[in-house]
């Protein structure tokens, strides 16, 4: 029987209350959202805490998905299932539904949250790769106010983010830009498993030419990685198999996979290449209305 080491349980009733508790209880305290990453780590004694602050009652306050003209704002407590089922998200960012379909299984998706996924900062985290691909902004709150950081600033390293001990991620903002679409491709060992490698792509077309593109990879480096060189290579290109192939080659070269039970370095580079091509191909097909 695996159980966490003893801790004191607190339940937050509002964002301000949660932040107040974090401040008062100090670095031995941690927020628990869906618990689907934190509780397993506590069972395995990879995390030992004095206090857990349950923020599930904040779902009313932080469970929203709000569409605005230039962005979609998503509260940190939006659960995987809500992201999967949101037609607004699927219409603007089909990458989100692509990814959510292959994150864990439906029952885990009933609990896990966007905020928990990003703050866990697992290099294999699918939603982090999605947010990286979409150039999301993260809103972090403390008792002294809010600050907004990019995904690059947010991810400090494996399991390490810009959120300090007395702060909380409250919202993720996905910028809407016209003429674009997106897609996500993942290879896993079995249904519901973490990625061996996954790739997200977002493209924007203007007059039949790629005006901008972004590719984000998971599980092939210390963080989920946005590959700037791919964006540079694709800008100004007409979408074509050659363009996707050169992007794939760049992705394979620029990632930093390690060999493990999921595969060798060569295999993972091969996947980074192939999945980048597939994601770009699909994102373009969606942007041009050839695929939904």
């Amino acid at each position, binding site marked *: 029987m695996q*159980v966490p080491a003893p801790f004191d349980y607190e339940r937050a009733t509002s964002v301000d209350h949660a932040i107040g508790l974090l401040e008062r209880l100090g670095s031995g305290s941690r927020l628990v959202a869906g*618990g689907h990453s934190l509780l397993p780590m*506590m069972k395995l004694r990879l995390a030992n805490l004095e206090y857990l602050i349950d923020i599930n009652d904040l779902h009313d306050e932080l469970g929203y998905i709000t569409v605005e003209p230039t962005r979609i704002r998503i509260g940190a407590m939006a659960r995987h299932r809500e992201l999967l089922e949101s037609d607004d998200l699927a219409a603007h960012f089909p990458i989100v539904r692509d990814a959510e379909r292959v994150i864990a299984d439906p029952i885990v998706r009933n609990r896990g949250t966007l905020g928990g996924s990003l703050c866990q900062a697992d290099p294999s985290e699918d939603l982090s790769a999605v947010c990286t691909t979409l150039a999301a902004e993260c809103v972090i709150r403390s008792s002294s106010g809010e600050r907004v950081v990019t995904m690059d600033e947010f991810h400090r390293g494996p399991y390490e983010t810009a959120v300090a001990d007395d702060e909380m991620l409250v919202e993720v903002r996905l910028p809407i830009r016209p003429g674009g679409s997106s897609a996500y491709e993942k290879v896993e060992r079995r249904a519901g498993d973490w990625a061996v490698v996954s790739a997200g792509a977002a493209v924007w077309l203007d007059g039949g030419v790629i005006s901008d593109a972004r590719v984000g990879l998971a599980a092939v480096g210390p963080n989920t990685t946005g590959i700037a060189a791919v964006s540079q290579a694709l800008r100004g290109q007409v979408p074509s198999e050659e363009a996707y192939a050169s992007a794939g080659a760049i992705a394979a070269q620029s990632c930093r996979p390690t060999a493990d039970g999921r595969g060798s370095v060569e295999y993972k580079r091969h996947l980074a290449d192939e999945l980048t091509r597939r994601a770009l191909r699909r994102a373009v097909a969606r942007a041009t209305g050839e695929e939904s």
Partner: protein
Amino acid sequence: MQVTMSVNGDEVTSEIEGRLLLVHYLRDHLGLTGTHWGCDTSNCGTCVVWLDDEPVKSCTVLAAMAGGHEVRTVEGLEKGTELDPVQQGFMNCHGLQCGFCTPGMMMTARALLDRNPDPTDGEIREAISGQICRCTGYATIVRSIHWAADHERAAAAAAASGALTGDEVVERVLEEADPSGGSETPQTVGAGSES
């Protein structure tokens, strides 16, 4: 700490440790051992119960987190003395072998049918994809869930047409469900023919 929650409609209050997991609370404190516990790592799904009408893996939920909420376990599936059609389906279609995964499977099936009364094979398989049957044989589990769906829809249609009262519908469903009672009952398949 003290925690109060509703379990299968009854309010329960207990003195527990913050670290106690919901699966152990249900089994060890309340004696509701129908909820099984297999892997501890949120993978096998034998511990699935409902938290406020949604299936969750109770090995990854703290009992304290369920405080103030409604929990439903397999013990709460039957209505009075009548089995839920999902339970009846598992009986009729050989949906259980050793029975270890069965309570979790049935809780997920019930939640699926409440949202989607006419699921496809694919939708059923997707719904139970986070749950492992060590006895293999998902075909009979899928068939059991179809059976429940078909019977519930038939009962609802009969009730809507006004041909039968609610009680008569239940009776009719149970009659049809009786394995000795006729051709409606799907036959179980021999081992190895489908899995």
